[in-house]
């Protein structure tokens, strides 16, 4: 006979657990490293890679971190002191990064291939001003916001 109150309590606990917000576990070591590196914004996670725009003293650059090792990886040929990155996307292999940046008064979309250290401008056609970019996890396509004729639009660019 004492089973019923216990069963009711158990059912109540299960029901309440269903209503409770889920608990997130911060990745403490990685987060500490990010904090020590200065400010960071515009995160893009894919596979084991986290791309952010960050830095100290107002000098921002694109940074790529290996989330599993908690370490930044070099991006030779991508960052330059006279460019201001605005948005970044990364594929799941950490091979391709799509970046919107301002350089010489122009806003441009570029694609960086890490293994080759090569940077390729991607033309916006018809002409427009890109803002935020997201790269598909397989790296084959990107979606970019473009200001064109007073309207924000989304362009989908498929890459070979």
């Amino acid at each position, binding site marked *: 006979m004492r089973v019923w109150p216990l069963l009711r309590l158990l059912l109540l606990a299960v029901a309440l657990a269903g209503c409770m917000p889920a608990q997130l576990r911060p990745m403490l070591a990685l987060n500490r490293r990010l904090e020590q590196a200065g400010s960071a*914004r515009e995160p*893009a996670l*894919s*596979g084991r890679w986290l791309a952010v725009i960050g830095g100290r003293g107002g000098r921002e650059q694109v940074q790529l971190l290996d989330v599993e090792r908690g370490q930044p990886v070099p991006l030779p040929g991508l960052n330059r002191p006279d460019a201001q990155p605005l948005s970044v996307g990364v594929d799941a292999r950490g091979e391709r990064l799509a970046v919107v940046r301002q350089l010489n008064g122009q806003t441009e979309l570029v694609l960086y291939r890490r293994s080759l250290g090569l940077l390729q401008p991607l033309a916006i056609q018809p002409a427009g001003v890109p803002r935020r970019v997201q790269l598909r996890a397989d790296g084959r396509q990107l979606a970019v916001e473009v200001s064109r004729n007073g309207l924000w*639009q989304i362009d*989908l660019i*498929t890459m*070979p």
Partner: protein
Amino acid sequence: MPHLCVAALTGLLLALTGCGWLGSASRRPAPLGGLANSNRNDAALSGDGRLLASLIEDNGTTRLILQEQGSGRRLALRHWRRQTPHSSPSLSWNGRYLAGLVQQGEQRRVVVEDRLNGRLLRLPLPGGGQPERLSLAPDGSRLAVQVLRKGQWQVEVLDLNGLLEPDLPGATTVLGGGVPPP
């Protein structure tokens, strides 16, 4: 010497072309779905490219829409209706999970919709603070959130293992799968 330089450059160009690096990218507008004259921004593609999430301006607020990329057909998002403005959508590999920011009163909250079972997860940030942007890992294992802390933008990465089942690319198994091929 000039001949050597020309030959080396030609070889490099041919190699790059062979890699597809200099191949031309093709561009097309996102499927309109009756949204030709609306501002659209903050797009997110699922890892397999089948789905596209984006934000539109609608009746004075910013609302999330989800479309099939091929047909442009809009998919229902019943959980998100009354929590505008929405921002920062992010999709998993097969589009099972749709993460984003919603407004609840004065607070901006992180939510993840599990489209397979229709469940909406509210994810309070362990360190508090207002989330500004987020990115969900395509397999659903992690979430990166941009928050304002001590007067500067910070990115925090959160482990979702145990909260979300993996949403992996097609033909990927987590366990089992029989005897590996020789």
